[in-house]
């Protein structure tokens, strides 16, 4: 409690100090006094946080603000710099904003690396004129009416950010001058998003442009250091969506990121760094981020899993799911925690998703079809394991079995095609793939490798037999010669 009273007291004191400073400045700042009569800029500057903190016009423009002689005040000898242009603008701001001691002098605890970040950003690197970079501090913060970021009047206050960015990013003609391919509908899409709609209602917490892209250090999407580079998107979204305290009041779960990291998509992206794997924005959209509705789930998944979506749409399940208002893919595969589709999902066991709706007494046709489908897959698995074992054995025995080994690719393919074909929920079509394309090849490979192994033993036993016969012959010859020699010796 004492601490809070102390902070309030300090703030009141500081406020009084800076108000007094502004009053003093107003009375003896010749730049302000003169320009006040002209209106415009001085009126704006009156509300400026810098003016409030006692910084004179000379702080940015140079010159002698104490002199009422215009020629003297705005002379080069007095250090008058005039209106900064191009990259000079940001450098003038950095004169104070990049210096910690200077910022502390005015009671500010703002970071002092903004210019550094801006220089490394896409805005600080690109130029349309070749002279100055496309964005200066004033582009977003304004020049004379700069107010605190926390003030709703600031162009970079969360509610105003989309329009501030949109000044350039929604201007097709301007954007074309440096990237003709870039989209200019981000703000329009944002306004359709959940974030954008809440933002429009006056809630400053939901994400706006800077929440995902950063503010001073905005980098191109393809830049691996960008917050919105494919690999970084899940973590960027999770900064808010995994923060239970921040999300309190929005009535949505905060375990999406944790689930995603365990999912097949998350592992592919975050562990294998496969940037073609879906991140949050692949299903929810980026600027127009919104949860896919029941009817559009399959379309969203179908952008990548096109065959599965097509087969499902023409299957009997389509109507049943529509009737029960079940989200098509999500019902069996879940949403954020999508696990690899193994055969355990198929069939009538407890783990199988089919058994959620089909039992021996309810929706029985599906129950028996699921059971048969699973049996086909199990048979193929058993046959594949046996075939691979025999091929390996034949290979190790030095037999030529490469053709059978090559054909086993078809078994692998049949298993993958079966994972797609299962979405037709048609037993005949499924059987054609599993049995017709997979099991037949696997069985042929078993026969071929068994024949190769049998041939191996035939040849080897033959070799042993021939060695024995040859040895016996040699021994017999030896004994026969010895006998002849003994006979000859006895004759002598």
């Amino acid at each position, binding site marked *: 409690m004492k601490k809070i009273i102390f902070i309030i007291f300090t703030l009141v004191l500081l406020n009084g100090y800076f108000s007094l400073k502004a009053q003093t400045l107003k009375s003896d700042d010749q730049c302000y006094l003169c320009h006040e009569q002209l209106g415009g800029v001085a009126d704006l500057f009156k509300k400026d946080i810098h003016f409030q903190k006692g910084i004179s016009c000379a702080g940015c423009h140079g010159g002698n603000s104490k002199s009422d002689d215009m020629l003297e005040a705005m002379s080069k000898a007095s250090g008058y710099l005039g209106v900064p242009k191009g990259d000079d603008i940001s450098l003038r701001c950095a004169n104070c904003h990049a210096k910690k001691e200077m910022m502390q002098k005015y009671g500010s605890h703002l970071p002092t690396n903004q210019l550094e970040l801006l220089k490394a950003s896409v805005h600080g690197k690109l130029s349309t004129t070749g002279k100055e970079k496309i964005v200066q501090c004033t582009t977003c913060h304004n020049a004379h009416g700069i107010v605190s970021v926390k003030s709703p009047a600031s162009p970079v206050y969360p509610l105003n950010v989309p329009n501030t960015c949109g000044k350039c990013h929604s201007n097709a003609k301007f954007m074309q001058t440096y990237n003709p391919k870039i989209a200019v509908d981000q703000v329009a899409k944002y306004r359709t998003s959940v974030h954008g709609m809440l933002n429009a209602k006056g809630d400053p917490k939901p994400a706006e442009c800077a929440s995902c892209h950063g503010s001073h250090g905005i980098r191109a999407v393809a830049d691996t250091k960008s917050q919105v580079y494919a690999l970084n998107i899940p973590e960027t979204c999770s900064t808010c969506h995994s923060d239970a305290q921040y999300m309190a009041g929005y009535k949505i779960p905060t375990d999406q990121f944790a689930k995603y990291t365990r999912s097949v998509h998350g592992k592919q992206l975050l562990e294998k760094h*496969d*940037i*073609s*794997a879906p991140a949050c924005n692949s299903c929810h959209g980026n600027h127009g981020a919104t949860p896919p509705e029941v009817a559009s789930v399959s379309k969203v998944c179908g952008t*990548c*899993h*096109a*065959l*599965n979506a097509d087969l499902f749409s023409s299957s009997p399940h389509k109507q049943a799911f529509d009737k029960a208002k079940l989200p098509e893919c999500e019902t069996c595969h879940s949403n954020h925690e999508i696990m690899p589709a193994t055969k355990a999902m198929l069939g009538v066991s407890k783990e199988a998703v089919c058994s959620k709706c089909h039992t021996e007494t309810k929706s029985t046709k599906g129950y028996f079809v699921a059971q048969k489908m699973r049996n086909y897959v199990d048979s193929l698995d058993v046959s594949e394991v046996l075939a691979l074992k025999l091929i390996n054995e034949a290979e*190790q*025995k*030095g037999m030529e079995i*490469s053709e059978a*080994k*090559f054909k086993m*690719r*078809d078994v*692998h*393919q049949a298993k*993958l*095609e079966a*994972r*797609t074909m299962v979405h037709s929920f048609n037993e005949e079509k499924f059987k054609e793939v599993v049995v017709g394309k997979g099991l037949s090849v696997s069985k042929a490979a078993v026969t071929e490798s068994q024949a190769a192994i049998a041939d191996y033993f035939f040849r*080897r036993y033959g*070799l042993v037999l021939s*060695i024995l016969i040859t040895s016996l012959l040699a021994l017999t010859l030896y004994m026969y010669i010895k006998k002849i020699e003994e006979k000859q010796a006895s004759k002598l």
Partner: protein
Amino acid sequence: MSDLDSNQNRRSFLKYLLSTSLVGFLASVLYPIVSYLNPPKQNEVEVSSVLAGKISDFEKDSGKIVRFGNKPVIVVRTEKGDFKALSAVCTHLDCTVQYKKELGLIWCACHNGKYDLSGKNVSGPPPRPLDPYTVTLQGENIFVSKKA
């Protein structure tokens, strides 16, 4: 030591020498035979070039899978009559791709992955392009080899 003892020692030494030599001889004969009967594990033979067929085997706007060692390679004859050879192993989950005439593309039946005729992945889940192979025409024969 008597002469008899000395003779016996010499004889037993010779017997020992003879039996050791015999064991050595048998081992040197039997080892290759046993090794032959139980061959060591061996790597697959590396293939550098294969005969894919004759030009007349390929109609224009068609494709054919050929074996390249233990990997499939797809040889496509374009509408213009040019030959292209690419790895037929889909970069998504290792299915075997095929030429889809109506699309003029290489297509994977497993998950609808599509590649253009230079092997670039253009649609669907494949994360990267198909590996290219070199096609060499020698008279009527078409040879496919690995790109250097």
